[in-house]
């Protein structure tokens, strides 16, 4: 399977296929698209579809985006739709939220979600809560997007995962794409959503190509929030994960398959709302649960999943306690050996699975 081979290339820069921007209008049977290009095309199409959509953030326009996600957009749409901001997150995030309140549909890019902490009051108090406080009078159709979580060698202040922080808050929708199809479908859905959406990308996935079906290349292709995807069917253990760690889980599953252990890999796609039904159905089938994430363990995504499984029908089907694989509970160190050992590796996932299965 082509998708398996590209999955094994996860984390290392694969040769990205260069695509012409007109690509989306003539869709062949299936094609390889990097996550970066999927995001770029999705934004391009949505900018074209609705003139109220615009992108703002640091370096999004003339620099083509710090990570080149918005490459070519400024040239095509100009200053009115693609806006470079000064390095003032609290200010420009507030401005983006105000523009959304006044009828536009901004995409507010954070160069990384670490910088969103400077603006988190605007995301939570001004964006997330306003529809509720106003009893539906004032909606805030905005997307906050950018790379989230660890990168490679960028140190403690640039490596934090915010899935749990934003996933905590009612009034927000929080999604975490893995594949190019996820990126495209979830971003289109986010831009078309009338509510504040936090869109957590992953820098190390930007260059990874994925096969995309004809259906997924359609200009109205969207992925609904709150629906996880089973990326690999299995019978012995359920792995629940999101973002880059979907690749790691699939790799671990491939290794274990050789030993006769079949893992079911559930790609969450959506942090809030969380698709508990899919997780429960899977656990009721496999009787074992391991969650995998890059974020810190305490009060994290895995912690929430375990609590929910405890509270639901799947608990009675567990043959062993659910367990979590997470980032190590330390600020991210710089030295490669330390960094490598502060995040889950494939061997760590395999180890936890074997412990859970008692093999």
């Amino acid at each position, binding site marked *: 399977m082509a998708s398996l081979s590209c999955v094994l290339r996860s984390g290392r820069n694969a040769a990205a296929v260069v695509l012409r921007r007109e690509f989306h209008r003539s869709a062949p049977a299936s094609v390889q698209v990097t996550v970066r290009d999927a995001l770029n095309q999705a934004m391009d199409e949505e900018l074209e579809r609705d003139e109220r959509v*615009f992108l703002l953030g640091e370096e999004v326009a003339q620099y083509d985006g710090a990570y080149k996600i918005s490459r070519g957009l400024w040239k095509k749409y100009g200053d*009115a739709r693609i*806006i470079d*901001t*000064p390095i*003032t997150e*609290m*200010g*420009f*995030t*507030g*401005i*983006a*939220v*105000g*523009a*959304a*309140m*006044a*009828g*536009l549909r901004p995409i507010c890019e954070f160069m990384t979600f670490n910088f969103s902490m400077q603006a988190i*009051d*605007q995301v939570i*108090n*001004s964006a997330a809560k*306003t*529809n*509720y*406080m*106003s*009893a*539906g*009078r*004032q*909606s*805030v*159709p905005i997307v906050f997007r950018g790379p989230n979580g660890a990168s490679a060698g960028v140190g403690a202040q640039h490596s934090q995962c915010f899935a749990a922080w934003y996933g905590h808050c*009612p*009034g927000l*929708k929080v999604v975490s794409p893995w594949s190019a199809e996820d990126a495209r479908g979830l971003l289109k859905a986010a831009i078309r959503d*009338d*509510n504040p959406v936090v869109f957590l990308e992953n820098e190390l996935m930007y260059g990874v190509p994925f096969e995309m079906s004809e259906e997924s290349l359609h200009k109205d292709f969207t992925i609904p929030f709150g629906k996880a995807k089973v990326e690999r069917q299995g019978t012995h253990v359920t792995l629940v994960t999101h973002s880059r760690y979907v690749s790691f889980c699939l790799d671990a599953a491939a290794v274990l398959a050789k030993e006769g252990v079949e893992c079911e890999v559930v790609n969450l796609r959506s942090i809030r*709302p969380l698709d508990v039904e899919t997780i429960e159905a899977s656990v009721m089938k496999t009787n074992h649960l391991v969650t995998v994430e890059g974020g810190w363990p305490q009060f994290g995504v895995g912690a929430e999943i375990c609590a929910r499984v405890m*509270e*639901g029908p799947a608990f009675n089907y567990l043959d062993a306690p659910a367990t979590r694989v997470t980032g190590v509970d330390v600020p991210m160190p710089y030295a490669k050996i330390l960094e490598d050992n502060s995040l889950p590796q494939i061997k760590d996932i395999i180890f936890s699975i074997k412990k859970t299965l008692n093999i």
Partner: protein
Amino acid sequence: MLTNISTVLRTCVQRNGTAAVASARTYADFTQQASFEIKKCDVHKLDESPATEVVMTREEGLKYYRTMQTIRRMELKADQLYKQKIIRGFCHLYDGQEACAVGIEAGINLSDHLITAYRAHGYTLTRGGTVRQIMAELTGRRGGIAKGKGGSMHMYTKNFYGGNGIVGAQVPLGAGVALACKIQGNNELCVSLYGDGAANQGQIFEAYNMAALWKLPAIFICENNKYGMGTSVERSSASTDYYKRGDYIPGLRVDGMDLLCVREATKFAADHCRAGKGPILMELQTYRYHGHSMSDPGVSYRTRDEIQEVRSKSDPISMLKDRMLSNNMASVDELKEIDVSVRKEIEDAAQFATTDPEPPLEELCSHIFHNEPPMDVRGVNIWAKLKSSS
């Protein structure tokens, strides 16, 4: 407005038949408009300043009087209801500052936009809310302007973005609304208000920068009532020239107790924005009679003498009343009738606000999202199956 006045006069007439001829004669005798000398504004980076001789019509005067009086009485009623524990939580009252809200609205259109912080009841009214809706929101009832979901600090109307509880956050929001106006090319502008306490917030300077850079149609207005909660301006700000704080943004310092000053300055500022010159700043020097909020008696950090002095020498409603009476633009009785009518409106609203039922429990989970099918919402435990109906 004129129909109201004639109704009022007719009621006078019915009560005292012999006055019929007298009131008809008095009505025709009123000056229809007069010009007034107002204080010159201090300017920053401006070659011109707002006019110092302005015209006000009788009709305008009566409208301003009524609106300011409505705000005044509404806030005093809120004080009463709070002390009776019918209003709870935060309640930041606006009495003393009426000339700001009414003057600003007189200088812009309802199609323009406005955003302020938490001392927002006056603006909710001038921006189209009714006293009933405002009071019922304060008492947390289903007839409240936000159906009881928001409370004192979170009231919204068309083109009025609240009501914001986080000090300073409303200023970038307002700049964003101005950005939308510019992008949409609708010749509208956005007024963003903040206090002397908020004026030191970093995000305000971030908003100034982007507004100036992108020439946004934004009027930034600092309502300087001399105290940020219990901290006087001298104790909070290295520079108390708030109208200069925009640096490269031109500014005006305005007598915020004189509604005509505020109106004239706002018109000047609006013209500036609509001419595409970018943002402008206004500092309104004003005063609040109440403490910061209902939990602050307001006398530990300032003297009762100071409060009394402002009341007797600079009250905005008295100033307008004196102007109208001394220019024969209205009669004492006519203004008294307005007072009576306002009092009645407030009483009716308070009655509504205390008798309207609280929102139904089903409302707990509604309005989390906009345009969303009903969804499950987690309650206090897993057995509490709550559902939203967006």
